[in-house]
């Protein structure tokens, strides 16, 4: 008994000690700010390698690290400023994401460069905090669709596309298949979506489009994580929609394809968003997913120069973050592009503020004035991987193109030309939504003058 008691008290003492050292680590991060400027640019990496979304989160996260390692190895960072990073596991959970943000935002000589939350839910939460901490958020192909409006959302950058552009492009594609958008009249289009902010984002646009083209729009939510979809597909079987749009993430996508197969719904009538069009989504369905289509954010599949550099400078040195064969897969490429754009934003900002570690606020300007033409892109080794992008104060998206790819049972192949989302439809929606937000939050939209700063 005496012994046991001692053991217990010991244990508690230990725990207390640990906790104290924890508190100690708080100030440590603060000092980092104070200490004379090391020539380092710090990138916090919010990731999720575990849980239902882990399989998709992992290649994405690996690519970012690989790209950073490659730059440090090849060019010694950005114009001589070494790149440092730290990962934090969010598990795709909003509260954990917020904690990661708070933990990492102060690290490094100049604090966080920018944040890529890798989750729409976390993006919503951070949208409230970023302006206070002056840290830009880049949400490439996800996040708040209305945050394209840089006049209201000064700190959000949904680069290269939002869920509204995605939905719009799919509808355009369907119209093309049917001969013309008018032929969608009377058709049934069902949206099977991840029941979270991510899955709900496209709904307003699809409703808009269904009004325009008089097609019937059916919403079928699937509860996260989305393993259990039986009744969703029973509904599909009952309503027999002409097309099914799949807005899933992680395990939900493969589950959806399996159910589609089980209920005999033709896969070639299914169209996924670009988060439902990667290898992990289809690989363990294999033949069963043959014919399934998904959007692809502009880039082609296969190796290009940047991949070779990464293999050469990272994997061959045995410093690869993940397995070598994931290099060049869809989500891996997306990770590369995100990290590249982040780095180029810093480079752009350096042109204005000098080749030294920059604060988030300075980098924000860089993102807002990003201008990558084909030449630059080729120079960066991303030739064929992506198309030109140029952002501005009013437009934080920079480009809104995507192509449709199709799973042939073993790999993804492109089956359409690049579409561009329809400005006519998007602009007013973005304006209206951002105005509502500004009004809710009592934000005064930026003036052109403010943009010059």
């Amino acid at each position: 008994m005496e012994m046991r008691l001692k053991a217990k008290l010991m244990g508690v003492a230990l725990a207390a000690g640990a906790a104290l050292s924890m508190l100690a680590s708080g100030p440590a991060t603060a000092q980092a700010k104070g200490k004379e400027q090391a020539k380092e640019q710090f990138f916090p990496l919010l990731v999720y390698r575990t849980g239902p979304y882990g399989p998709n989160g992992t290649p994405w996260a690996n690519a970012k690290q690989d790209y950073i390692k490659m730059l440090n190895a090849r060019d010694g960072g950005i114009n001589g400023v070494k790149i440092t990073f730290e990962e934090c596991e969010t598990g795709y959970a909003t509260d954990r994401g917020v904690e990661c943000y708070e933990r990492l935002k102060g690290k490094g000589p100049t604090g966080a460069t920018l944040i890529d939350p890798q989750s729409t839910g976390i993006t919503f939460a951070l949208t409230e905090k970023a302006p206070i901490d002056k840290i830009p958020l880049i949400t490439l192909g996800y996040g708040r669709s209305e945050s394209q409006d840089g006049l209201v959302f000064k700190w959000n950058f949904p680069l290269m596309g939002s869920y509204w552009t995605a939905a719009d492009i799919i509808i355009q594609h369907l119209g093309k298949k049917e001969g013309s958008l008018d032929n969608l009249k009377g058709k049934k289009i069902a949206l099977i979506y991840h029941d979270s902010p991510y899955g709900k984002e496209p709904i307003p646009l699809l409703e808009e489009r269904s009004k325009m083209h008089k097609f019937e729009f059916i919403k079928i939510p699937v509860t996260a994580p989305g393993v259990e979809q039986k009744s969703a597909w029973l509904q599909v079987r009952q309503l027999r929609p002409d097309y099914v749009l799949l807005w899933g993430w992680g395990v939900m996508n493969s589950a959806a394809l399996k159910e589609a197969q089980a209920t005999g719904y033709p896969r070639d009538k299914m169209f996924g968003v670009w988060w439902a069009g990667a290898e992990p989504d289809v690989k363990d369905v294999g033949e069963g997913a043959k014919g399934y289509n998904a959007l692809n954010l502009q880039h082609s599949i296969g190796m290009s120069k940047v991949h070779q550099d990464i293999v050469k400078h990272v994997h061959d040195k045995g410093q690869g973050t993940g397995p070598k064969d994931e290099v060049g897969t869809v989500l891996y490429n997306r990770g590369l592009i995100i990290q590249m754009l982040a780095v180029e934003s810093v480079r752009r900002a350096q042109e204005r503020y000098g080749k030294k570690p920059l604060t988030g606020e300075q980098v924000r300007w860089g993102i807002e004035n990003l201008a990558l033409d084909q030449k630059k892109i080729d120079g960066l080794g991303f030739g064929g991987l992506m198309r030109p992008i140029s952002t501005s104060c009013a437009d934080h998206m920079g480009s809104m193109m995507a192509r449709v790819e199709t799973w042939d049972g073993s790999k993804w192949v492109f089956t359409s030309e690049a579409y561009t989302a329809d400005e006519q439809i998007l602009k007013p929606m973005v304006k209206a939504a951002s105005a509502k937000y500004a009004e809710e939050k009592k934000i005064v939209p930026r003036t052109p003058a403010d943009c010059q700063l």
Partner: protein
Amino acid sequence: MFYRENGQFKATYRADEQMLPILQDRVFMFAVVAFAFLAMPFLATDYLFLSILIPFLILTLAAIGLNLLVGYCGQISIGHAAFMGVGAYAAYNLVLRLPQLNFLVVLVLAGLIAAAVGMLFGIPSLRIKGLYLAVATLAAQFFIDWMFARVKWFTNYASSGSVSTVPIELFGWKVQSPSDKYLFLLAVLVVFTLVAKNLVRGHLGRAWMATRDMDVAAEVIGIRPVYAKLTAFGVSSFYCGMAGALYGFVYLGSWEPAAFNLTLSLKLLFMIIIGGMGSILGAYFGAAFITVLPILLNQIPLWLGLSLSTATASHLESMIFGALIVAFLILEPHGLAKLWSIGKEKLRLWPFPH
């Protein structure tokens, strides 16, 4: 040597009924509170405030609430995060639709609404006990989750289903900077800790504990189970409701229904197991433990210079979590609070044991 109560004789029952009968305890508590209010705001970093202290304070409030129900009244609940959710959405809608309301009023109203809902879902406890009740509360959890995800009015027809809040303002005081948030929460928590303490040492508290320890005997001495159980559900949901409102407004700032899911409910449960069932102090310990542990587990490898993959780290986390729960249940069912009091006993005899 210094921690002795001899020589402190209680002349009146009032003196004997004090919250902390031993002088040294009073001094110590006062010192702690003073430190928290006066020193902490200057010592702590933003990170400490935003990721540790603020969630800690809020979750403590919730844990106290749950402890009143589970620890004091003996009624299990695996659905209390849902009542936090009720509080959060109630506050959101109150602020949205009655902007002129003072946030303190909003906070209390949110608590009361949560209390009402809590009592509603507490009704089954009159007929069922233990495990059965656990499942009944699960029903509350899932139904309420669903309700906020589906009924558009609650989220003001936000297409994404996620709501965001405006900074709190109290009598011209904008509660926005980390230290302001901290002070505000601390004040709320201190007040409601006292309230809880008073309740459990009043006759209502005795009614709860009696129901917990021996419900038949309690009934025989005239304690109505209906009254005891429903008040327990009400009060505890009231606490969680307020905690939820604060969690939404002060900590997250923007959230979707998933923010108050089963995982959070289980977290709360773990807090009171580890902290100590039927102890207000335990709620503090438990909340601190649960808030700090995952962060520690992420940090320790970094300090040791180990490069532990984030995946392994988070797997380790849930393993250690589970192991700790079992360990506590076996070694010290009354949790950290009990260890604390054992420690005090020892100190009382020190340096002359026996």
